[in-house]
């Protein structure tokens, strides 16, 4: 047996016979040069994990639509306020309780006049006309002088001042009574424009046309659309931050527990079970009340930007984060532990161990990157749950603090006047639902594409 094997072994043949038998000469056994090496390289581009997942995700039409919807909602929340000339805390007088797409009579006058002329000109300091001007909503510069007036004051004094188009060098005063509905007038007087106005007025923008209150305004004259945009922004931010907190704590806890095993694992999992059975909403509610004063003190005393940002959101939101840090990471920890239990038996973990890698390095470099799919999915599905919790608390009056808004607090505010202004509830509620729905669907899509084994 050995003999026959030896006979046919090519290494035993002499070179000339080799050529005869297989069509190979001696040079075939030289080392490959670079060009030859290149031809051996796999020509197909290797597909990374993420590219592969993205390819699968793209095939899932529902999730793609959901992702698109979520991006629109996020644009609405984060870019929208830049486009709308109102602020979430601005209380427009005489513009309270407006319906969708409406603007107040006062704004209407501005608008009709806007159509007729290039800009508003006014002065506060002409003796006998308008006195005690607070701040100018409108201003103009002429020959290095700034003139300003508030429309409110002008209305009170029955005077609107402006220059018609093409008459830039003249500033005139018209009485409100002399302006008809179309904004035409015939009776006016020329204004002496020599007095200077305070520097404060310069900061204020000229509002060249009326932007309608697309979602109407609330009882305090705040533009509902801007408030909804800010609310959506706050809700999304809260969701993301809370999910990140859960991700960090849950993944670290879970991987330590899974990797350590034994008694440590046992104890850590009993703690998880204990926390799991705590009715978390009870704790949240109590935390809300308990943390209110200490957090307020911290906001007042600390000068850091972080504290400032947190104080804008209010103590309620900070307590939500704390609650997530305390109670909500358990699901994540369980999932990560389950994954780690499977992964730690893999050869590469053994190899890393044999090479002397520390546990910390094994978790960081080997275990967590390999359960990244699960991490992403769970984090993504955590966001809507955080948004839900926040809106629930805001609804009970314990979420963000006024004048900041969240979708939940907007719904809660709308409740008081629900029979008169149902749209005030409907807009934020629909946006809340859309955000949660799209995130849920994106999460489902992620699960199918990142971890095809879980596909159902």
């Amino acid at each position: 047996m050995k003999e026959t094997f030896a006979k046919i072994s090519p290494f035993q043949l002499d070179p000339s016979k080799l050529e005869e038998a297989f069509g190979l000469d001696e040079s075939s056994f030289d080392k490959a040069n670079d060009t030859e090496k290149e031809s051996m390289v796999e020509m197909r581009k290797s597909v990374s994990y993420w590219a592969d997942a993205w390819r699968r995700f793209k095939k899932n039409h529902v999730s793609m639509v959901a992702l698109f919807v979520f991006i629109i909602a996020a644009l609405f929340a984060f870019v929208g306020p830049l486009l709308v000339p109102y602020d979430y805390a601005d209380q427009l007088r005489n513009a309270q309780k407006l319906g969708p797409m409406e603007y107040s009579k006062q704004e209407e006058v501005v608008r009709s006049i806007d159509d007729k002329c290039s800009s508003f000109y006014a002065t506060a300091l002409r003796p006998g006309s308008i006195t005690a001007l607070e701040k100018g909503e409108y201003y103009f510069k002429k020959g290095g002088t700034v003139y300003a007036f508030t429309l409110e004051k002008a209305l009170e004094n029955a005077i609107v001042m402006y220059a018609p188009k093409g008459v830039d060098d003249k500033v005139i005063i018209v009485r409100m009574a002399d302006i008809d509905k179309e904004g035409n007038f015939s009776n006016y007087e020329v204004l002496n424009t020599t007095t200077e106005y305070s520097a404060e007025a310069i900061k204020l923008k000229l509002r060249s046309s009326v932007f309608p209150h697309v979602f109407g305004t609330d009882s305090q004259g705040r533009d509902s659309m801007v408030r909804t945009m800010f609310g959506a922004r706050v809700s999304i931010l809260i969701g993301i931050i809370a999910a990140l907190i859960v991700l960090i704590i849950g993944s670290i806890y879970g991987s330590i527990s899974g990797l350590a095993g034994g008694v440590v694992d046992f104890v850590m999992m009993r703690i998880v079970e204990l926390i799991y059975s705590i009715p978390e909403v009870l704790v949240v509610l109590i935390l809300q009340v308990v943390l209110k004063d200490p957090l307020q003190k911290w906001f007042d005393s600390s000068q850091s930007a972080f504290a400032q940002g947190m104080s804008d959101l209010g103590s309620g939101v900070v307590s939500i984060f704390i609650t997530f840090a305390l109670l909500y990471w358990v699901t994540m920890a369980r999932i990560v532990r389950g994954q780690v239990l499977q992964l730690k038996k893999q050869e590469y973990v053994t190899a890393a161990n044999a090479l002397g890698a520390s546990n910390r390095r094994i978790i960081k470099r080997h275990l967590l990157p390999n359960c990244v799919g699960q991490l992403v999915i769970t984090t993504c599905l955590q966001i809507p749950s955080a948004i839900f919790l926040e809106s629930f608390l805001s609804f009970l009056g314990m979420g963000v603090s006024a004048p900041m808004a969240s979708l939940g607090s907007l719904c809660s505010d709308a409740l008081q006047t629900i029979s008169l202004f149902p749209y005030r509830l409907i807009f934020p509620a629909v946006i809340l639902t859309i955000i949660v729905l799209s995130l849920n669907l994106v999460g489902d899509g992620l699960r199918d594409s990142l971890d095809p084994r879980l596909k159902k």
Partner: protein
Amino acid sequence: MLWYIFKRLLASIGTLLVVLAITFFLMNAVPGSPFLTEKSTPEQIALANAKYGLDKPLIVQFKNYLVTYAKGDLGVSLKMQEGTPVTDILFHQGKFQLSIRLGLIALCVAIVIGIPLGCVAAYNRGTWIDGFLRVLTTIGVAIPTFVLATLLLVTFAVNHNFLPTISGSLDSFKAYVMPIISLSFYYTCYLAKLTRTSMLDAINQDYIRTAKAKGVKTRSIVIKHALRNSLIPVITYIGPVIAGIITGSFVVESTFSIPGLGKYFVQSVLCRDYTVIMATTFILSALVIFMNLVVDIAYKIVDPRITLSSRED
């Protein structure tokens, strides 16, 4: 089995103690006292503190709570209805019964409607029925309870007067309709989704094929073979459902003006009525923990493959 129940019971008591401890120490972590008002003088506060034992060290106070709870006494309200025993407020004024009735009915509705809906969807997989149910349930889990509750309120009570705006103490059938719908909708949808997925899993199993090959009717395959086996993940979820329904009742109770436990708890937290907070937390968490225990045992009965002693993942 008995040993398992005993062990779980012990663990439940431990959890309850932890919840109570967290609540108690959180409550007391805030400086000040429930008796602090603008008018009260330090002497009055001290007097009131002494009267209700709030001047004692925290540990002693906590021990006193546990001792009185063990005796079945829930203490006396400090603020909301000063001097009234909490048991009177919760049980004799019907708050507890009201919430429990509401919660149990909502739970039953969620189970009785949700699980069959999931079966119907799985049974008609790929048809328009399945598609419709999928859209419905997906939207259902994305609508917050309070939005649904208010929309119902506006549509049926304010604009059309079909149903009463204030459900009060639920003394007529009409009063139940909206609170129950809003409380159970989310969970109905969730259970339907869950049942559908696990039914689909079960339908692909070999024993279903065998049953089909034997010529068993489709209906009885679904009910006898598929449903039974697909109920397990559904049952695990019932525990969280119960907790959620109790939580959801906070919103529903305040929307429909039902003087129940949830609303009362929120009020007591807001005005720092220590004894009421503790008592309500005690009752609610005991309820949730107990229901979790029941669910775990039911789990065992439905699926004998699961060994109760090790609940490893």
